[in-house]
């Protein structure tokens, strides 16, 4: 069924509106989720780094480093943590979780015992690295790397879910709008046909006598316009009615 030209603009408007809604809410979602997750991940990393720093002191001082490795391996299993390493106060390695080896960027880069740094490690990904000193730094430091890729993945998931919801609402709205637009467009199309029939009674038309009768019987604006058109046509046909 063809949509009346008048209402094609309405449909276009609905598309445009939904587009703006989808874009603006997605942008807001990216911003909000990114900010919240990044803050939360850094806070979690800091907590984990501090926990390891506190519990590793006794191990470093009194026990074998395999126990320390066992400890960090357990934390490595937490979602989002991609690597953990511990160095002593001289920067010598005590334990780490890197496979196949310690990245050069970390071997040669800054290993500050405190604070947060962002790292891009070729072959590994992008990370937020949080450090925590052990015994105020005199026994070394713990470094925990959180995968920024996971944050991006969470954002993608959140946006994906939002777009999925908007798409469903959009499809329902389009179907509803199409139905409503059609409901309004059909009598107007009939009205157009009726007025053309009044203007040229001999011209071919798809409007049947029943259609015309139902149109004139309508009690809405379309019915009123049809009756006015019929009245004007009658007046135009009656010679004595002309001024």
């Amino acid at each position, binding site marked *: 069924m063809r949509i009346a030209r008048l209402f094609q603009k309405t449909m276009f408007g609905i598309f445009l509106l939904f587009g703006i809604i989808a874009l603006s809410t997605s942008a807001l979602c990216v911003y909000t989720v990114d900010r919240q997750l990044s803050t939360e991940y850094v806070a979690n990393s800091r907590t984990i780094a501090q926990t390891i720093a506190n519990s590793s002191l006794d191990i470093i001082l*009194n*026990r*074998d*480093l*395999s*126990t*320390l*490795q*066992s400890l960090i*391996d357990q934390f490595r299993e937490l979602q989002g943590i991609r690597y953990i390493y511990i160095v002593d106060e001289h920067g010598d390695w005590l*334990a780490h*979780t*890197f*496979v*196949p*080896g*310690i990245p050069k960027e970390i071997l040669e880069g800054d290993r500050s015992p405190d604070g947060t740094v962002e790292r891009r490690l070729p072959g590994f990904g992008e990370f937020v690295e949080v450090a925590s000193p052990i015994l105020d730094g005199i026994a070394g430091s713990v470094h925990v790397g959180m995968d920024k890729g996971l944050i991006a993945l969470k954002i993608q998931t959140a946006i994906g879910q939002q777009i999925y919801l908007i798409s469903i609402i959009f499809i329902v709205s389009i179907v509803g709008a199409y139905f409503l637009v059609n409901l309004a467009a059909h009598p107007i199309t009939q009205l157009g046909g009726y007025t053309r029939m009044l203007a040229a009674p001999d011209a071919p038309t798809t409007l049947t006598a029943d259609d015309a009768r139902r149109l004139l019987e309508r009690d809405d604006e379309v019915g009123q316009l049809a009756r006015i058109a019929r009245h004007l046509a009658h007046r135009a046909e009656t010679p004595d009615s002309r001024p």
Partner: protein
Amino acid sequence: MIGHTIGLVPAVLLAAAAIWAAPARTSPGNELVVGMSAAFSGASRGLGIELYRGSMAYFTEVNRQGGVHGRPIRILGYDDGYQPNAAVQNTLKLMLEDDVFLLFNYVGTPTVTRVLPLLKKYERLHFTLFFPFTGAQPHRELPYGPLAVNLRASYRQETRGLVDHFVDIGRARVAVFYQADAYGRSGWVGVREALSARGLRMAGEATYSRGTKFTESLDRQVAILQEAKPDVIISIGAYEACAAFIRDARKAGLDVPIANVSFVGSESLLALLQSASAADRRDYTTNLVNSQVVPSYEHTAAPVVREYRALMERHAPTPPAGFGTDYTPLPYSFVSLEGFLNAKLLVEVLTRLGPEPDRARLRTVVASLTNIELGMGAPVGFSADNNQGSDAIFYTTVRDGRFVPVTDWSEWRR
């Protein structure tokens, strides 16, 4: 009536004599159940299965002869796939549900280091871990040392021996390829300390993830170590990953000696390398040195080796029920010999414990064991301060498709 009764006396005496002479009868109700959690599946299953088989060869013989004080010994084994969490779950089940008498033959450092705190937590139940198949330190030192009894030498001793031998022949640039977990770290520390004692530092290091298969590529690890230009590489790993590393290293032209510690599972490693050698038409088995903590099973002059071989043949122990259906058991191996020696020493402990076994007395009995001739090259002994029975290390290399003792290190002289 009396005459009839008197007539029965010889028959009763004969019956009594027969009962006394025959092996003590045993019943399932009085058996000694020892709990074992090990890798019976996955990339390291060969270790768990062979350790179990070696122990079963000896236990089966002991049970055939009536058990220990009339009690047969049974291994209740659970598979942990060499995964720490599974080992913890298995141990809880063995201690709290199955109520085994003791824990025995656990395989691996990452698993054992996670189980030790459980033993501490349930210390009041007096569970002791006997002869774990790992040379790591946590169960040799406080606070967990008193909860475990070790037969084998430590990784520190193995790695120190390897480092000393190689440095002595001019190979001072030592690199380490290791499993990224507590086991690998334990060996890494051993190498580092041995080098440090000689004023040296590690030339380089590369790691792999636990569970790595032989079919996987270890080219990245090879590239890292190639860059370090080592004179020798010490591997702290399991057979599938170590074999894959040796294969890829040789393919890349890295021909320096590669040494493995006892945990690797030498025969399984060799079998993989031989299959790859045949497929690629090149020899991947040269320049290998494996340290062992038990004597060679080829050393048939040793009575214990003859006994081991005889019982392995006689009882042909199968893998634990439900496992190893697609696994071909090895006729002899260093791992099953270790399992055999573990079982032999455990039977000695249980025998000395007496007919009314009490878990709480186990450690006292172990501490009283001195100068036990187990066939490890030197007498085995313990004390209140020493929970490791043997310090013996044996070095082997591949000749004619099998591991033989290293007699001359100069062939690797630089």
